[in-house]
């Protein structure tokens, strides 16, 4: 996994609450067999009209936000499906960090598995940050995971919380499966004890 340490980039405002996973990447794009290539379909319904032409009023179709690496939105971002295609599409477009007052659990979790950092900040702060993004290409926001701060265009720092384990994994781009496999003996012991204590447990059989 690509590590996330510090990022300075253009932030795009999306002042919408409950941005669901069907908005982020509609189901018809889930037929892919790979993790890449979904960036062009990110926010498909909002970004393109029925003929596939760009809607000029959508933020990611405007300069400088076409190159946004940070997205700022409102409450309950990523609600809905467990599809990891949502963070894949964001990442493939070039977005590495989403800032919102709150996130849906599965989406939040999926971000960390894909080198994307979700940052939860109070709603007033998100609204303030969105206001500042109007500065266009001057609206560079820095997100520093090492120091756990978001740095506004004026240099002011806003601290954010992140789980220590997830932070460590993201900073170092760790392979979680490899980590877990170091507990292999523990897993085997658990399985053996379980089989003894609950012999009625059934296997999947067809």
């Amino acid at each position: 996994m690509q590590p996330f340490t510090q990022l300075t980039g253009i932030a795009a405002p999306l002042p919408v609450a409950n941005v669901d996973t069907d908005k982020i990447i509609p189901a018809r794009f889930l037929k892919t067999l790979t993790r890449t290539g979904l960036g062009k379909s990110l926010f498909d319904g909002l970004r393109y009209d029925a003929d596939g032409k760009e809607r000029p009023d959508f933020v990611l179709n405007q300069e400088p936000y076409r190159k946004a690496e940070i997205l700022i939105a409102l409450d309950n971002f990523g609600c809905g499906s467990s599809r990891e295609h949502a963070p894949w599409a964001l990442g493939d477009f070039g977005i590495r960090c989403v800032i919102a007052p709150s996130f849906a659990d599965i989406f939040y979790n999926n971000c960390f598995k894909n080198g994307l950092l979700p940052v939860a900040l109070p709603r007033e702060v998100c609204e303030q940050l969105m206001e500042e993004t109007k500065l266009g290409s001057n609206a560079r926001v820095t997100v520093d995971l090492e120091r756990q701060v978001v740095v506004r265009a004026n240099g002011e720092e806003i601290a954010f919380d992140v789980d220590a384990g997830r932070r460590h994994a993201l900073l170092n781009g760790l392979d979680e499966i490899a980590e877990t496999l170091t507990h292999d003996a523990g897993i085997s012991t658990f399985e053996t004890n379980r089989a003894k204590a609950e012999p009625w447990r059934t296997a999947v059989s067809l």
Partner: protein
Amino acid sequence: MTSEKTTGAPRTLYEKIWDAHMVEPLASGAALLYIDRHLVHEVTSPQAFDGLRVNGRKVRRPDATLAVPDHNVPTANRDQEIVDPESRLQVATLVENVAAFGVPFIPLNDVRQGIVHVIGPEQGASLPGMTIVCGDSHTATHGALGALAFGIGTSEVEHVLATQTLVQAPSKTMRVTVNGELGLGVSAKDLALYIIGQIGAGGGTAHVIEYAGEAVTSLSMAGRMTLCNMAIESGARAGLVAPDDTTFDYIKGRPMAPKGEDFDAAVAYWRTLPTEAGAVFDKEVVLDAADIAPMITWGTSPDAVIPVTGLVPDPSDLTDDAIRANHQRMLDYMALSPGALIGTPVDVVFVGSCTNSRIEDIRDVALIAKGRKVADGVRAMVVPGSGLVKLQAEAEGLDKVLLEAGFEWRDPGCSMCLGMNEDKLKPGQRCVSTSNRNFEGRQGPGGRTHLASPAMAAAAAVTGRIVDCREFA
């Protein structure tokens, strides 16, 4: 957090399942949680199997894993090749992957095929006290059996395939108690929608919800599955109902359930699972079943819901700018104005999805369809949740009732719940749907979805309008 509870303190159902599956606490404060069942489908698994391949890893416990194609499959002409090349390839890829990794698999042409959350309980693969995961958010459905069941992303699918565990932090707990009895014509779906309306689409975030109270315990297993299925629509990680005799009766004799003495031993264990008196939840919500009418959503978030006899709220009554703007956006997308929703004409009726595609749901629809006709210009489709549900319905003659009334009677799959196959709304079409999500474009780009119960869907089909199903009671 569970681990901080003093020994001997009364525990909730969730905490008992958590404790029983904790392999090892991790330095980060999370834990390695053992997974008993892993359900796999074609859409969220290809990249996971690919990851195993790239890293030279195996599936640790094929005997705890069950795969089935459902999201992307056609619901008609099953004897022919899948027409859409991408769907065909995705289903073929699942077939290849399960063969290569030795994973038990129910193929498309098997009578047991169906929506993953319908077939898990139906086959007895989902049992009380288990941890159950699937790369699909509606895995919460299996919580109806008293299992801790939740949706995961593809990276976690790969993690479970390789290690049979997940790295998890304990969730907060919430209990939603619904006292009293549901009225005539009011179903588990209405209960589910009502609860979401009360606590909000993000109200359950970071929590596992246990549903309790008379209105919940008196539900059939199908009703409990409908209720837990929609836990995720309130943002909850999972939904649970304590296992009881209704649960054990349902499980007994299912193909993969324990048999004979094993079954008795299992029941003895399952009886120890329910939340103990005095156990503390992080949040408690108490509701009264008498307040619940048949519900229907008017917006593009499942909490934008009203009783069918109620009014679509007026955005100008809202003081918060952002909320008002969202509200207006939903009205615009749905082509609705504030005021009564009843009487609004509909184009399509969809009965199906892991929320409402079980035999009980189809019986509800047939009851209203019997002797009536689908209104002119309305397309009404019924998509059973599994091949076995379909067979059962046909044995009861429900297919004939539905076909005579002018409903389509299709093969099992996710179908118009998410519009991945050819069952899609056309832009601007208005649909009363028994599924679980009314997001913009969920049932097809530009489609307008109203979530409701099977009875409400049937009533809309035969009148061509949004109506109160109690008129048909």
